[in-house]
């Protein structure tokens, strides 16, 4: 099905299932511990052995020799395969770090061996016996130094108007530096895979991965085998946040181990490996300059940022939102990649915008203050309905102003503390802050197959559910389209035997995959119509009706199976539109007047993200993003050892995500918006919008509480206590 123009009104505008607050259909499996996650798929195949990785203890250089004799002789060990025994493996798209093979070391905890044994304990104990000798190269992992080298160089990615003249002429300007640290996804379930490649022929992979087809293609490239010899299953995923978009060392080592010992092998990455072996969000250094006239209209925006990456990688482009978010006739945007030998920087929830808005939305708060304006009013004054970098391109839908106004009203913004440092309750300084949110609304082609078996509808697509609610919204979509109840639909996901979907990432999954399921359902409707010889039958209440025809859907095929399969293909027309999701965050914090500890007191998000397919699962996504934003604002930081070139706090005791006690009352409002240019369901993603802007709203609230402006994350107490009032 081609989606080549904005949709007209359709059945989803009269929905009875989609858009309704249905609890997750997979919820019972999850809360009873019976949803099969990758490492626990003990019954998937007989004879599973345990693999345990060995990581490089240097950041850069060459591994000269690996002594695995002791490990090979340890109890229960069936094999040890070192990187020196294997030619460098291939690397598929999007990633640059080599996962295994050869002697080159590019980062700390790069896998250099895998130990396969009969039990987990035996594998882990033997892995500790593997010894390696290295030739170590010095590392330079100083992003700040990289920024100083690159600042002002290179061509801008966006250049509109005459920025320098606008700054020279502006009565009010701002020019500040901001820093965000590297972050790890810290998903609950580490990367884990079971691989059976024991005969060297077909490869079966039970894994935890957001993108089934990418995973299959990456495996094919990595091992030089045909994709059609590889089957990938990933029906349940314990969080990914972008960290599981890629093939990583768990599956690679399991495959190598399986091939070597002739049995299926399972590997889960220990938590330190999740942090230093896999990907993370790069730190950023950002300079933001704003110019405005005295009535609060921005006349120029300049945003220049740097992030780190292994050579050839993508880093974290913190300028991602700046070409689009606010109006201004003059604009210059530039992003620098600083190559360094930290683990590979890559996507993490709202890559680009999450870091960029952490800075830009502080800058907007600072500018509002300089202008003597309410920060809500300042943002409203600089709204735009067209792409400000190319005004010929309108936004398909943009209700940012409504987010701001609804949020301000709901939060009680009018009653906020208006004097930084001016409101105190006991030992706590109370502050209020807000920020805008923006994230793109990408859609990717997505396929599905629906099978009508008796009265039941089985949906099959390689779409994944990474905890987001895909199972439920897909069931709702199919039920709505086929006129069935939710209980009559079974959803099967995350299997390369099913049609290729968008997968989960970039907040494109929900909108894309439901559209694909809709397309498949239309194909099934055609099959039904053809079988019945009916013109345009209607599908309602479990029945199919047409002129002179009214029978239960389950009776159509008379015991046989009817199948519909299709892929939604999104057309070029979207290139003529700027598509995005928008939001506003409002936060109240307390800052301890003596210690400088910042604690959240309440949070509100208002979201403009098209049709909300399920208010329960969507809310869950947004509050999850807000929680991650709290961590990003106040505690999360991968601490770089500058001499040794690795993340030193590589476990969940040292890398502090927000805990329950950090999260008070959270409220989410969804605007009842529809985007007919997005998908037939008029839906957009919301899973990444929730994290965008949150941290800046917290930073702005902390400033409002204390009068101390912090531009470096996380906003830990040492950045404030010298400037807090005497106790």
């Amino acid at each position, binding site marked *: 099905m081609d989606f080549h123009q904005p949709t007209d009104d359709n059945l989803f505008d009269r929905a009875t299932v989609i858009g309704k607050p249905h609890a997750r259909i997979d919820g019972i499996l999850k809360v009873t511990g019976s949803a099969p996650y990758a490492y626990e798929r003990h019954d998937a195949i007989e004879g599973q052995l345990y693999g345990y990785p060995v990581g490089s*203890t240097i950041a850069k250089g060459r591994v000269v020799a690996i002594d695995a004799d002791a490990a090979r002789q340890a*109890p229960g060990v069936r094999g040890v395969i070192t990187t020196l025994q294997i030619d460098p493996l291939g690397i598929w798209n999007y990633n640059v770090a080599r996962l295994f093979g050869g002697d080159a070391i590019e980062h700390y905890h790069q896998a250099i061996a895998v130990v396969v044994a009969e039990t987990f*304990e035996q594998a*882990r*104990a033997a892995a*500790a016996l593997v010894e390696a000798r290295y030739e170590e190269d010095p590392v330079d992992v100083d992003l700040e130094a990289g920024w100083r080298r690159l600042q002002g160089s290179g061509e801008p990615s966006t250049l509109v108007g005459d920025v320098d003249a606008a700054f020279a002429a502006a009565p009010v300007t701002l020019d500040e530096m901001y820093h965000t640290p590297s972050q790890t996804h810290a998903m609950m379930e580490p990367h884990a895979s079971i691989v059976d490649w024991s005969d060297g022929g077909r490869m079966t992979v039970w894994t935890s991965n957001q993108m089934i087809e990418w995973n299959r293609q990456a495996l094919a490239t990595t091992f030089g085998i045909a994709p059609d010899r590889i089957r990938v299953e990933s029906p349940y995923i314990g969080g990914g946040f972008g960290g599981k978009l890629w093939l990583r060392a768990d599956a690679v080592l399991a495959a190598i181990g399986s091939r070597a010992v002739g049995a299926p092998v399972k590997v889960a990455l220990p938590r*330190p490996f999740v942090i230093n072996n896999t990907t993370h969000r790069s730190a950023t250094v950002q300079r933001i300059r704003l110019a405005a006239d005295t009535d609060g209209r921005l006349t120029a925006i300049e945003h220049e940022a740097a992030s780190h990456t292994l050579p050839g990688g993508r880093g974290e482009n913190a300028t991602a939102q700046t070409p689009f978010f606010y109006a201004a006739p003059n604009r210059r945007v530039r992003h620098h990649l600083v190559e360094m030998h930290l683990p590979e920087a890559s996507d993490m929830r709202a890559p680009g915008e999450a870091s960029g808005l952490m800075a830009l939305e502080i800058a907007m708060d600072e500018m509002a203050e300089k202008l003597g304006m309410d920060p809500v009013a300042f943002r409203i004054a600089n709204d735009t309905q067209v792409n400000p970098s190319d005004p010929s391109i309108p936004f398909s839908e943009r209700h940012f102003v409504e987010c701001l106004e609804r949020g301000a009203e709901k939060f009680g913004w009018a009653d906020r503390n208006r004097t930084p440092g001016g409101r105190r309750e006991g*030992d706590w300084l109370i502050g209020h802050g807000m920020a805008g949110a923006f994230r793109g609304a990408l859609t990717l082609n997505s396929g599905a197959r629906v099978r009508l078996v008796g009265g039941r509808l089985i949906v099959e697509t390689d779409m994944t559910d990474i905890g987001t609610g895909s199972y439920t919204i897909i069931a709702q979509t199919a039920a709505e389209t086929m006129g069935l109840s939710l209980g009559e639909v079974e959803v099967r996901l995350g299997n390369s035997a099913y049609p290729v979907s968008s997968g989960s990432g970039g907040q494109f999954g929900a909108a894309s995959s439901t559209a694909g399921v809709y397309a498949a359902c239309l194909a099934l409707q055609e099959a039904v119509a053809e079988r019945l010889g009916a013109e345009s039958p209607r599908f309602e209440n479990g029945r199919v009706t047409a002129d002179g025809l009214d029978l239960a859907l389950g009776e159509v095929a008379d015991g046989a199976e009817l199948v519909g399969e299709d892929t939604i293909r999104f057309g070029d027309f979207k290139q003529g539109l700027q598509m995005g999701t928008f939001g506003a965050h409002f936060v109240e914090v307390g800052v*301890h*007047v*003596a*210690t*400088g*500890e910042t*604690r959240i007191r309440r949070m509100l998000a208002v979201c403009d993200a098209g049709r909300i397919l399920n208010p329960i699962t969507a809310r869950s996504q947004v509050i999850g993003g807000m929680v991650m934003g709290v961590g990003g604002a*106040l*505690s999360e930081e991968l*601490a*770089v*050892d*500058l*001499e*040794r070139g690795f993340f*030193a*706090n*590589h*476990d969940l*005791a*040292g890398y*502090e995500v*927000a*805990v*329950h*006690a*950090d999260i008070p009352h959270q409220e989410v409002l969804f605007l009842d918006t529809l985007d007919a240019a997005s998908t037939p369901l008029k839906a957009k993603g919301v899973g990444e919008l929730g994290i965008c802007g949150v941290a800046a709203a917290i930073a702005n609230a902390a400033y409002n509480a204390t009068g101390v402006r912090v531009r470096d994350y*996380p906003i*830990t*107490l*040492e950045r404030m*206590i*010298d400037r*807090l009032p005497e*106790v």
Partner: protein
Amino acid sequence: MRAFSYERATAPEQAAARAAEVEGARFIAGGTNLLDLMKLEIETPVHLIDVRGTGLDEITATDEGGLRIGALVSNTALAADERVRRDYGVLTRALVAGASGQLRNKATTGGNLLQRTRCPYFYDTAMPCNKRNPGSGCAALGEGAFSRQLGIIGTSDACIATHPSDMAVAMRALDAEVETVTPSGASRRIPLDEFYRLPGDTPEVENALMPGELITAVRLPAPVGGHQAYHKVRDRASYAFALVSVALVRRPDGSGRVALGGVAPQPWRRDRADAELPNGAGAVMSRLLDGARPTEENAFKIRLAERTLAAMLAEG
């Protein structure tokens, strides 16, 4: 984790004797720290002696009017004990500021005292660490190392790790004593201020226990009275080790005691600092943290400790 053998002891004397007999043996009770360390091969005992059956799980009144807390009393039970809550409030407050409910249910009084440091370089066996691997160096003192959480006083050129316990900080303020049984069956008492050893050149030696010696109890003297408070400062609201913590006992006449956590290789208290309490937080800290040698990253702990104490004193 290396393979190990395991036995259950039924009496403290028996446990201590066995520990002295078997080379490389360790006691295990709650296991909340030791098992993690064994998984990472930071600790590699060849034999575990489970002491949970040794009957050391009572809190009893002493003849001196204090309490004897059995070494196996869980952190949860100790925090909730009515006598502790009434007479030793700083201890309950410190306990509930530590770890999580689940961990406190498992963690024991004796084990809590013997926690190892949470220094990230101690935890990474690829890194030099004089505490884990004597003579290998200290990665935390390296150029560009991550030292924000680490110690500012009592440290040495060999080690800047901190002791992570909250409970021990309160016990230090309460003048607790550690009661032990030695492999020969003798019992001895070690005041808490003599229990922990500063790292010096031997950071692997953390306390005064002899090989095989088992902690049997912690003894609290008669209630000291006064207002008792524990303020733990951290980046998140729960489940984090202290950046700085302050245990305070303050009598109506303004005298009292102050002990700090998160700053030193042991709960940190000095009599001469206590004596300055009537003169305010600045006077206390100038004595208590005199000689501090922070890193650039953790120098803030000095001001933080003073400000925290000042806020506690202002509360009355």
